[in-house]
């Protein structure tokens, strides 16, 4: 984070600002440091067709965790799904929870696990940042920003 905005503030306000920033920084590391999310993207289809959310969830911590679901203010309904292909016939299965062992990662990727996001609460466009919260069995939550991408992105 750049210090320039702080330097532009009136001299009296600076110490308070510094403390405030420090507090934000600390609380952030306390709640979110356990897990890492990479490549979060949301493949947007036209109209109100369901979108697919893909990401890589890494658990660098020393405890096992269980992903139990997701939610987004931009959608009325978010489900965890898995695509299965049996004898050339493909279908989707709801997934209630996914165990993620310590040090492991799980990939939500085309043809496998995906978030299925339905019933948009507002209009969305390619390039938008969309907030999604992941829920875990231990009560932990993690906010992720998904970038909305075109359906022709693989």
């Amino acid at each position, binding site marked *: 984070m750049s210090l320039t905005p702080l330097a532009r503030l009136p001299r009296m306000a600076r110490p308070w600002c510094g403390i405030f920033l420090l507090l934000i920084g600390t609380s952030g590391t306390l709640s979110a440091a356990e897990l890492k999310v990479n490549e979060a993207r949301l*493949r947007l289809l036209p109209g109100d067709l369901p979108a697919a959310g893909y990401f890589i969830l890494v658990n660098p911590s020393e405890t096992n965790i269980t992903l139990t679901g997701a939610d987004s203010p931009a959608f009325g309904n978010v489900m965890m799904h898995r*695509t299965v292909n049996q004898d050339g016939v493909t279908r*989707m299965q709801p997934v209630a929870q996914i165990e993620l062992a310590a040090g492991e990662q799980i990939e939500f990727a085309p043809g496998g696990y995906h978030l299925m996001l339905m019933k948009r609460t507002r209009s969305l466009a390619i390039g938008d940042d969309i907030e999604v919260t992941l829920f875990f069995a231990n009560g932990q939550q993690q906010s992720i920003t998904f970038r909305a991408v075109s359906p022709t992105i693989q």
Partner: protein
Amino acid sequence: MRRWIMTAFASLWLVGCGEQAWQTKDISGLMPPLAFELVDENGNTVNAERFLGKSTLLFFGFTHCPDVCPTTLARLDAATQRMDEAARDDIQVLFVSVDPRRDDPETLRTYTDAFGPRFIGLTGDKEALEELTRRYRVTYGYGEEDSNGNYDVSHSSAVFAFNDQGEARLLIRDSDPMEAMVADLERLAGDT
């Protein structure tokens, strides 16, 4: 000497000067030619003859499918983007929705437009869809409706490819590498 030349010619013929093997699954002679009567994106009844003259890729799916259908269509788009322009223009993709209850012509048009001008949406009534899916020995079915009225549709994940005469040529699967698809589509575009 003459014998040696004959052998050389024979082996050249065997390795196939010109006639290389398809890299995805060859279904020539195993599947019937393209034939159907369906409804297009404008609500008009169309049959397969209308699409002859270009190579056709046929895929069964539904627009409320967030994962497999867009992934397959995106792969087809990526493959055609890698072909030379002339060959690319010979390819059309028919996306046949097996979910006519939700996929009206308007929804289909907006959906296929998102993938580009090469993609054409079709659907039909139960009878037309059953006839077409039986013809290519694929199945589809409807999952249970949830409290939101949403339901899954199981469908074939493969893409059938036909030459510009509507003769069946290839079955392209999710697992086929991109290079194999591009090579075969280029060859298909030159196949008459």
